[in-house]
């Protein structure tokens, strides 16, 4: 999300120049962060279930871990995308006029 935010700084400015509010951009980036982290959590659960019977070492995964994982992922994802959120909110629409 950090790298993506750096790459999209100009897009944020353009979207603001086209009438997007800071709140709308914030919500959009936050939604992306939630989707990405939930997808990662789902992938992790799938991989854990596949690997569990294969491993020779006995592995116990309590049900609470499956429930806690998405919540933790979303919180961590939002924290990690703090820079992206900050960039989206503070984008200067006038900078969209800058020549490349």
């Amino acid at each position: 999300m950090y790298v993506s935010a750096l790459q999209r700084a100009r897009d944020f400015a353009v979207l603001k120049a086209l009438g997007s509010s800071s709140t709308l951009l914030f919500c959009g980036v936050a939604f992306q962060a939630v989707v990405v982290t939930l997808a990662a959590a789902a992938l992790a659960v799938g991989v854990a279930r596949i690997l569990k019977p294969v491993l020779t070492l006995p592995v116990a995964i309590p049900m609470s871990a499956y429930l806690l994982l998405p919540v933790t992922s979303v919180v961590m994802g939002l924290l990690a995308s703090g820079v992206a959120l900050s960039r989206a909110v503070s984008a200067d629409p006038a900078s969209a006029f800058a020549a490349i």
Partner: protein
Amino acid sequence: MSQLAVSDLTVEFRSGGYIVRPVNQVSFAASDGEFVAVLGPSGCGKTTLLSCIAALMTPTAGCIRFDATEVTALAGRARAQYRRHTVGVVFQAFNLIPSLTANGNVVAPLHLAGVPRRAAAQRASELLERVGLADRARHRPGQLSGGQQQRVALARALVHEPPLIVADEPTAYLDHTQVEEILQLLHGLAAPGRMVLVATHDDRVTRLADQVVELVPRRTASGREPEGVVPADDLVVGRRDMARSSLLKEKTRL
């Protein structure tokens, strides 16, 4: 009948220890249906002037009115609404979102305005057809020529049929043939219900214009400065410690 009135507009900001005044007490008016060329050399404040008119930048002093709206007094949601529904912006470098198709770029501002997906897609198709790109709707910006990208940008600027179009040197990155195409499209947009402002230093634009607003920075800036302020170039009008009477300083003090 839309009316644009710019009165004594001044923009100052600090940069590298200097006070920069790209726009210095500019006044002009434009009427509905007019094609207005904002003319001047690079660095004379054309883009800054358009940024203020499009509510992308707040001037240091002066007033901009569009019909009954005092643009310079807008803030927050009202400002976003003005940008969304009243102004269509065309950028020099096209500024299309590279990950979206031509259609996606036109649909984006419609989504921002809460237009339903199907209606937005329909509207985008109509606009791409209007600029002659119906067959390129699924192409990404990287697969389009400069002229085609600028036509997509024009379609994007028209999504809400705004009464005001501002275009910042829209022909700067185009070849001769593409320039003619874009100018024809822009000129055709200046019709009853809409005015078009184009910042340029291209003579081909001024020949089409109903009105030319010429910015002459050195003469107007240095002519008005108090003693002790030394014009360094077209933009810089005074060092920070010397410009005691600068509007920026007065505003900061308030």
